[in-house]
């Protein structure tokens, strides 16, 4: 076999938490696994997660009485009923195991200190006596939108610690990782995925990896919002793009984009929700704690979509602090004290010092809401198996497994990566074990030729077209300006038009540099079209969804509309087709009926049909949209009605 064709049992695209946890499961089952990653795995964006990981261990006083069912309720309410409730159920039950497993692998979780502890809760300093019995168990901190303290954390570097522990396990198992390698094209035929074509980011050369199973775990794609995101520069969404390009695999809920309330202004570096969890205030320019009036119950700790909207509204009302970079609000950490800031929130303290030269113990921190998380992604069933494409799986932020619906709760996504990694990894291992598979090198080489042609086409194009970076910047402005926190039909239509125009521009864009090797400009150019395609389906999805749900807020349709929109958006768009195709599937079987979330607006349009009617034949209706059969029957792990005693 030539060096441009590699063969493996399992190909994992993405070396973040989700990809690596998945790889471990498959490798432990004895399969040959290859991981591709844009960067060395430990530099994946999972390492940037600071605040915590939700798991209902119930170890501290403020977590007393917590259990997976309470976590399930919070998750479904957080999702604004957009989640697949069975997946949320599976997730909340498995999360404690996943967190304990990380402890076993070496994560230095912050622990319960038995005896008197001092916390700041809703603006008051409180003394709480933690039981000596629980001394040394994993501690929790408060996060937005939850009934209990539930986020497990390792100071303010939870993702970092988890990723290093998981990656060490990958090294221990001897799993091959090819870093600086980008998957650019899926190899597939007849609804069967056979691997992917990759491009080496050291040499610029393409090669094909044929695999019995392929997992997309490429994380979020916040960079379609240009610089208006907390995401890393590598979060450009190529995982979602290669799936979309097949034309068969749908992406789910692309319009569901989370904006985080507290990104540092103007660089948009994240300041974790853990700050507010630990008692920080949001202030406007008059140093007024506006969240107390806006959300008396949850205050600063309402869910992210709600807090972001209140902040944006506050700034629209002229209560923001004006700067040449636009307005911002303040985050106040001063009352937490230097000791707390330099230990439990140390990373935050460093970020403030290094990037804006401020000391949170003395100064107010300038913050603004910014794109943060992509609830949407490659639509998969509960096994992590992509719709319509056997042998293709997805996990982590890249996937729409759909426990987040239209708004993810803080701390739920780190937990998702390891839980999904465990579960999907197991399914992948089973899939690989019982499927015979014959490599069709011709299909692989055809895909590779296609990818090479794409690169050659960029290099050959001449003229005086626009620069790829100018197009990217324009995309970012459009997305943040018109597909942002508050949306409306008019602006969304403009956004769709502008991005359609940028797509045409992209076909005319010309490289300034033709150096051999990876060529950074070419590397970006090869992603640009895909990013624009993601931007377009996001904008168009938002335009079509004429209601407000979770993070998707339409000023012209401010109510959640369960009568018409209790559904998940699916979009398909082959790379040679002119227009994306949208369709809508039921969110899944509903156990907890739609109601008030406990924060935000209480007004909504009720379902017309009964729950029984909605649930009747729901899985057949999903199958019509391409959902493949699952190993256990769909709905079998829902534990219907178990929440009833708790509400």
């Amino acid at each position, binding site marked *: 076999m030539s060096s441009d064709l590699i063969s493996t049992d399992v190909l994992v695209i993405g070396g973040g938490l989700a990809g690596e946890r998945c790889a471990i499961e498959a490798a432990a089952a004895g399969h040959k696994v290859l991981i591709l990653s844009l*960067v*060395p795995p*430990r*530099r994946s*964006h999972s*390492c940037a997660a600071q605040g915590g990981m939700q798991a209902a*261990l119930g170890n501290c006083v403020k977590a007393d009485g917590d259990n997976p069912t309470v976590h399930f309720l919070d998750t479904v309410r957080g999702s604004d009923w957009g989640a697949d409730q069975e997946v949320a159920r599976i997730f909340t039950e498995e999360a404690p*195991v996943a*967190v*304990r497993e990380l*402890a*076993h*692998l*070496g994560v*230095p*979780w*912050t*622990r*319960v*200190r038995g005896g008197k502890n001092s916390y700041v809760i809703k603006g008051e300093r409180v003394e709480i006596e933690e039981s000596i019995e629980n001394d*040394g168990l*994993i*501690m929790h901190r408060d996060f937005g939108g939850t009934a209990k303290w539930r986020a497990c954390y*390792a100071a303010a*570097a939870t993702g*970092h*610690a988890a990723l290093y*522990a998981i*990656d060490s396990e990958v*090294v221990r198992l001897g799993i091959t*990782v090819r*870093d*600086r390698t980008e998957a650019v094209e899926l190899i597939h035929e007849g609804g069967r995925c056979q691997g992917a074509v990759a491009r080496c980011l*050291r*040499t610029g050369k393409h090669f094909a990896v044929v695999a019995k199973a392929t997992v997309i775990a490429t994380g979020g794609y916040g960079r379609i919002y240009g610089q208006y995101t907390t995401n*890393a*520069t*590598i979060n450009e969404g190529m995982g979602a793009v290669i799936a979309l390009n097949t034309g068969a695999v749908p992406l789910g809920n692309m319009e569901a984009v989370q904006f985080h309330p507290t990104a540092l202004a*103007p*660089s948009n*570096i*994240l300041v974790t929700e853990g700050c507010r969890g630990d008692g920080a205030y949001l202030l406007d320019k008059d140093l007024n704690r506006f969240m107390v009036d806006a959300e008396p119950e949850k205050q600063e700790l309402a869910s992210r979509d709600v807090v972001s909207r209140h902040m944006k509204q506050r700034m629209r009302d002229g209560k923001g602090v004006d700067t040449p970079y636009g307005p911002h609000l303040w985050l106040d950490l001063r009352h937490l004290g230097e000791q707390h800031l330099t*230990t439990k929130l140390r*990373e935050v303290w*460093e*970020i403030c010092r*290094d*990037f*804006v*030269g401020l000391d949170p113990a003395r100064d107010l921190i300038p913050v603004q809401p910014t794109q943060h998380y992509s609830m949407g992604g490659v639509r998969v069933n509960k096994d992590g198996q992509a719709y319509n494409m056997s042998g293709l799986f997805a996990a982590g932020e890249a996937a729409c497994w759909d426990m987040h619906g239209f708004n993810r709760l803080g701390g739920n996504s780190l937990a998702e990566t390891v839980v999904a990694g465990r579960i999907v990894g197991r399914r992948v291992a089973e899939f690989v074990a019982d499927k015979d598979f014959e490599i069709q090198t011709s299909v692989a080489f055809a895909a590779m030729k296609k990818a090479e042609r794409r690169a050659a086409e960029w290099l050959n194009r001449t003229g005086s077209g626009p*620069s790829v*970076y100018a197009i990217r910047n324009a995309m970012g402005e459009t997305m943040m300006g018109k597909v942002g926190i508050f949306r409306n039909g008019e602006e969304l239509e403009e956004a769709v038009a502008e991005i359609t125009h940028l797509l045409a521009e992209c076909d005319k864009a010309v490289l*300034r*540099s033709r*150096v*051999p*090797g*990876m060529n*950074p*400009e070419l590397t970006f150019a090869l992603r640009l079209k895909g990013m624009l395609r993601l931007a377009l389906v996001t904008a168009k999805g938002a335009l079509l969804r004429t209601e407000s749900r979770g993070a998707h807020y339409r000023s012209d349709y401010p109510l959640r509309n369960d009568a018409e929109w209790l559904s998940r958006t699916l979009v398909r768009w082959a790379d040679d087709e002119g227009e994306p195709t949208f369709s809508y599937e039921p969110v899944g079987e509903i156990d907890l009926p739609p109601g008030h979330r406990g924060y935000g607006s209480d007004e909504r349009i009720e379902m017309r049909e009964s729950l029984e009617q909605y649930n009747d034949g729901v899985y057949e209706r999903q199958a019509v949209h391409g959902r493949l059969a699952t190993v256990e029957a769909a709905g079998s792990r829902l534990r219907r009605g178990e929440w009833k005693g708790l509400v």
Partner: protein
Amino acid sequence: MTSNEGGAPRRLRFEIFRYNPEDPGSNPQMQTYELDEAPYMSLFIALNQIRETLDPSLQFDFACRSAICGSCGMMVNGRPALGCRTLTSDLPDVIRLHPLPVFKLIGDLSVDTGTWFREMVEKSEAWIHAEEAFDPEAQEARMDDELAQAIYEGERCIECGCCVASCGVANVNEDFTGPAGLNRIARFMMDPRDKRSDADWFEVVSNADGVFGCLGMMACHDVCPKELPLLEVYAYLRRKTLAAAFAGKEE
């Protein structure tokens, strides 16, 4: 030396090391670019601006741009630093940038730290050596929060390679475990979940590629962007080694 308040922005002169090993026509050389300084301008912002407006072929690595992923170590006027965290306002008008030494050059400012660190992890088996397999049913083993914080202190290393690049020994002895490697070893030695005995560690640490390779140059400690107490780490390893040597003797 910072940008004069209100006045015209400072004109910055970047002298950047250029070499593309993939290009037979490329020779190692310094290339000069000029930019106007902006408020809060970091090397991340400046380098991207150079790439987008002046020279699209310039190679460098950034990912998180918030000093947490460790991608962007580079020599800034002779000293290793994270590019994303270094503000131009802390630098003179002329800014010389080189790739980190020790690591394999990929092109211009981009070096292969990933391979180096993976080898380090393999060599020192930097993972928990537990005696028992994970039990999904069991409650987590307890740990004192003080100890968890102490382990966390060492765990914070982001593998940026700045310390390695700054260390004279690591620059000339490629088998030296290096500051980050020694730190990682100490982190696992401290962890009660890891069942390797002091005697096991003794063999890894007590040699010229281990802690005794360290000459106490202290550069690692001074350049570490995460402010890891590396000097204390080596002192800890030395004292542990001493204890292990004499404990071993008595056996």
